């Protein structure tokens, strides 16, 4: 019953979305506020409708309705309820409902704002969002419905087609046919039964979906011809929030890989990871370049291109994760929705670009870029670097398809390609991150830039030299650490300079001055904190990429393996069943010594899941600021429990990656913290100080 109900409500939501779309277009054409208001109300209605449909899907999942093929495929009776709920976004069809649910929620939120003088944007924002919602709803209604069920005939035989695969549909395909209820579901892949997996996909999706809002405003600006930077100011916080979620999702995915995938790494340049990384790249470029438009009236075309690209990449990312176009560590099933996604991306991209070309003359720059070292030129350079990394990623992902097209052979590129091609680009980004905030708007020369940066440059070089003689002779790593130090010193110097100035002028104590400085210029100093956090994350990445060491071996009891300064001694092993959870645990205990000093024990584990006949390798990890000792239990001799095989990694400095990530979220929090709603009120010129700080 809930299957038909959920499907019906979803269909209703689809019709309401189409109505909203039509009403918004008609209202905008005839300048009828009633029709636009009607479109807005219809849009507001889609959210509760999709929510009710999603609730019935969750009801089916939680109550073991395995006659629904989606429920059968992603859950099983042994899963705890909270994990069953996460299956909503774990499986393909459900995740598309999740997408539509989020977007209709965000659209509702944005239509509820006070529009005042921006009311002309409203119908077109609704149009763009409604088209996107309708696209996702049509996928789940007509191609990949999560409510489709298995059927049996009167004799209880599962209905299947000619090739033997079961027939699924929402409604009974013929009379006398009843739903077929399998005894238990197949269950979620054990690798996905991890808190990281509970939050990683929804955060990525939140990031993906939030980027639709700035895109919708950009398109609205193009259609209405109101091509000043109003659309950018209106969506600044949406962009930051989207960026926050996407970043958070990427970091959590890395942490999850580190904790449960058991290969000692956090990022594998896998196509699906790259699919989420690509919109992050254009989004980051966009975040930076909109500041140039706000400050200098430059790069207007560029910003439009960036947000259009971001939207296309968001849909493309969903498509890559949700179709079988590329083989990937994330083995999503091949499905019928690939061509439809591709058509939609092509259609929306071409339509957006056509609009942009139509408005091209209205988007002329207000000034000219004069100096190569001016802030705006360096920002443009930063944008080019992000786009270059994007091109590298896109090339790598598409290369098998491209080469097959031209040579008939499928040629792939792996992680070495990405590492080699992006490392110089990331290094240049670090360098710009250090220099750009100190260059002046409009005009800047080597002399002025040199005067403000030389102290930090000298200090950073000293750090590099010191590291070379005490820590590592790896030149690439030394250059990397020097750049990291450069960024940190310059940014701290900026905080110091601002705080000192405030301290003198306002006679505040040091902490008050620092807090107020940051609080009054949140965007700027929040941004600086983000820069520092990126440099700190770079320490972790440099550490694990340059200095990771590994060893492996089979040990009898009390035998030991040595790696770096560590000695790992195998003590004991136990194996037991947890029949309730359907898992067999094998847990080894090892003693850890460093330079002969006893540090404690680690217990790497293998969990064997009966229902999926699959192992999950949980490392024993001893994490310090200096390095992680990451011990994996690989194998053991079951008869005697006498010997066991271990693989051990030492991952230097990797903890700084996670520490940097925490600081990063703190920085975004500061940058995105609401002011007294400056967007809702028209900018007043009463207090000029307020205006400059808000725009900084």
């Amino acid at each position: 019953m809930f299957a038909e109900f959920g499907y019906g409500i979803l269909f209703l939501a689809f019709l309401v979305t189409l109505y909203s779309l039509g009403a918004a277009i008609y209202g905008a054409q005839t300048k009828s506020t009633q029709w636009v208001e009607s479109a807005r109300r219809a849009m507001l209605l889609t959210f509760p409708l999709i929510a009710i449909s999603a609730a019935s899907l969750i009801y089916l999942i939680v109550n073991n309705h395995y006659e629904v093929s989606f429920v059968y495929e992603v859950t099983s009776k042994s899963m705890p309820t909270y994990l069953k709920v996460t299956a909503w976004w774990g499986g393909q069809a459900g995740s598309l409902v999740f997408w539509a649910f989020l977007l209709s929620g965000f659209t509702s939120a944005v239509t509820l704002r006070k529009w005042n003088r921006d009311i002309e944007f409203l119908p077109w924002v609704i149009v763009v969002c409604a088209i996107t919602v309708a696209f996702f709803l049509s996928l789940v209604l007509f191609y990949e419905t999560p409510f489709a069920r298995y059927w049996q005939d009167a004799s209880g035989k599962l209905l299947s087609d000619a090739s033997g695969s079961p027939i699924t549909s929402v409604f009974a395909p013929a009379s006398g046919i009843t739903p077929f209820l399998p005894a238990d579901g197949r269950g979620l892949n054990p690798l996905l039964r991890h808190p990281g997996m509970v939050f990683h996909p929804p955060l990525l999706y939140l990031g993906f979906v939030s980027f639709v809002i700035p895109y919708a405003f950009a398109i609205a600006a193009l259609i209405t011809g109101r091509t000043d930077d109003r659309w950018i100011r209106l969506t600044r916080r949406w962009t930051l929030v989207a960026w926050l979620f996407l970043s958070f999702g990427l970091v959590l995915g890395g942490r999850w890989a580190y904790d449960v995938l058991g290969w000692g790494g956090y990022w594998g340049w896998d196509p699906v990871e790259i699919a989420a990384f690509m919109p992050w790249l254009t989004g980051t470029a966009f975040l930076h370049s909109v500041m140039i438009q706000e400050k200098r009236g430059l790069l207007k075309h560029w910003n439009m291109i960036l947000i259009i690209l971001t939207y296309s990449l968001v849909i493309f990312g969903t498509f890559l994760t949700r179709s079988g176009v590329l083989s990937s560590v994330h083995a999503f099933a091949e499905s019928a929705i690939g061509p439809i996604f591709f058509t939609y991306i092509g259609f929306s991209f071409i339509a957006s670009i056509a609009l942009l070309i139509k408005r091209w003359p209205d988007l002329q720059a207000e000034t000219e870029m004069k100096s190569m070292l001016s802030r705006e030129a360096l920002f443009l350079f930063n944008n080019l670097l992000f786009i270059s990394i994007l091109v590298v990623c896109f090339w790598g992902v598409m290369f098998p398809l491209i080469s097959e097209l031209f040579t008939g052979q499928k040629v792939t590129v792996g992680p070495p390609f990405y590492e080699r091609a992006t490392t110089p680009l990331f290094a240049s980004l670090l360098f710009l991150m250090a220099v750009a905030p100190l260059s002046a708007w409009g005009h800047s020369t080597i002399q002025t830039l040199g005067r403000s940066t030389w102290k930090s440059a000298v200090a950073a070089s000293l750090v590099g030299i010191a590291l070379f003689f005490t820590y590592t002779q790896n030149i690439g790593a030394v250059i990397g650490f020097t750049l990291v130090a450069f960024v940190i010193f310059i940014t701290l110097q900026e905080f110091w300079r601002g705080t000192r100035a405030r301290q003198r002028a306002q006679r505040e104590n040091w902490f008050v001055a620092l807090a107020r400085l940051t609080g009054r210029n949140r965007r700027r100093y929040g941004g600086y904190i983000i820069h520092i956090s990126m440099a700190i994350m770079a320490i972790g990445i440099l550490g694990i990429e340059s200095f990771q060491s590994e060893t492996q071996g089979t040990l009898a009891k009390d035998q030991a393996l040595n790696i770096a300064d560590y000695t790992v001694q195998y003590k004991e092993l136990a194996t037991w069943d947890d029949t309730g959870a359907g898992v067999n645990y094998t847990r080894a205990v090892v003693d850890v010594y460093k330079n002969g000093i006893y540090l404690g024990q680690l217990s790497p584990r293998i969990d064997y899941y009966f229902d999926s006949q699959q192992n999950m390798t949980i490392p024993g990890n001893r994490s310090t600021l200096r390095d992680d000792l990451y011990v994996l239990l690989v194998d053991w001799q079951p008869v005697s429990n006498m010997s066991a095989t271990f693989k051990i990694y030492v991952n230097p400095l990797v903890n700084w990656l996670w520490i940097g990530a925490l600081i990063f979220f703190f920085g975004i929090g500061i940058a995105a913290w609401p002011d007294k709603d400056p967007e809702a009120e028209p900018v007043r010129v009463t207090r000029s100080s307020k205006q400059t700080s808000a725009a900084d």
Partner: protein
Amino acid sequence: MKPKFLVGGLLILAAVAYLIFSSTRASAERFITVQEMEAEGPSIVGKSLRLTGAVVGDTIQYDPNTLTLTFEVAHAPADYEITEEQGGLAEVLHQAVIDPNREHVKVIYVGVKPDLLRNEAQAIMTGKLDANGVFHADELLLKCPTRYEEAAPDQTSS
């Protein structure tokens, strides 16, 4: 737009193009099936390849002392359309393993035995073929299509 910006932009473009081109050359691997590899003959020995095939369960041997893993893979078509025509990936892999006339190749991999290595798994291996017709894999990627509809991150071992 001043000429110096144009020159600067072109230089960056050239640098990025060079980076992509040289990195592609340095790390491109041909994606190949067992049958295609056998058909190539000795010319393919020593080249970087990504070989795909179906794991034959009976042949899996693992020596935990040396961490040496050996197994055979049978030829299975890698093309998505062909796979679909023949009843899906699970079916194609099953047929590949039970058919005694399929081309087989022996694979050696040194490292941790992946959890997903089992009969009728799809293996995607990065490595090189030696003169004796044995494939030395540096990286092993496995996919077990029967069990999970989605989101089963296969394992990477390197």
